[in-house]
């Protein structure tokens, strides 16, 4: 989910060949980022991850520096917990 307009994202997502939806939080600008407390005041979002389980409950929050790669381990661990494995 990004603060860009749709044409920009379309160009980007075609390049990525992404298997997941890429959403535009462009108008009203950053509304969902604001809802999730990850909008910076200059109008761009933090790099942030949320896991929402099947009941619609937040199970994982990670807000990290734009230059950091968050890695997959914590995400996989949370998903395994949710699935009771």
């Amino acid at each position, binding site marked *: 989910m990004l603060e860009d307009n749709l044409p920009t994202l379309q160009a980007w997502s075609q390049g990525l060949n992404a298997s997941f939806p890429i959403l535009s939080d462009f108008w009203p600008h950053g509304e*969902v980022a604001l809802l*999730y407390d990850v909008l910076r005041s*200059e109008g761009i979002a933090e790099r942030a991850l949320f896991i*929402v389980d099947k009941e619609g409950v937040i199970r994982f929050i990670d807000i990290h520096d734009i230059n950091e790669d968050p890695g997959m381990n914590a995400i996989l661990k949370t998903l395994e917990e949710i699935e009771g494995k």
Partner: protein
Amino acid sequence: MRQYSGYSRDTALASYAAWDQGKFWEMHDLLYENAPDLEREVLDSLALKLGLDMDRFRKAMDEKAHLDELQGNLDRVHELDIWSTPTVIINGVMIKGVQPYERYRELIEEALASSSRSGPLHRIQDAALRILSPAEVFAETGEFGRGRVPLWVQAPRLKPVNDLKVGDAAPDFTLPNAQGGEITLSAFKGSKNVLISFLPAAFTPT
């Protein structure tokens, strides 16, 4: 030399030419009323409508009298990496795109609260004001300064609105999907776990 799209260069020059005669905003309004049909003859007719001195107006247009000034402004905007309309600079903090009213208010109040009139914030504020009125910078310095002005201050994170924690219900949303259609979070309820990843901008390294 930057590329200008459509009538943007000539309409900008017409605005400058009207400004010479004290009718910048009047021209601005007429241009928007008449968009997108803004070829040169239309610009002349708008100038006539505003009661401008037509010899002066035509001369300014024919000679592209303000082209250097316009180019300087454009260079500056590129230098500042301003691409979104609107982009607002408050106390040196650049805000891209439309924000809720409260965000502007928060930043303006923060700026007002910083009482020092000679500290770095104030200097940046001066610079930001100059950025917003390049004509004044030009009048003062005779140039469109390059790299003279600190451009960017890392904006603070906004105060949490919802203060979300693990265990809270995820706020629902519906957003357009770049691959088409829309995605609503609550549509996955009962069927799928969802990973939401916020990225600041397209082309963020993944």
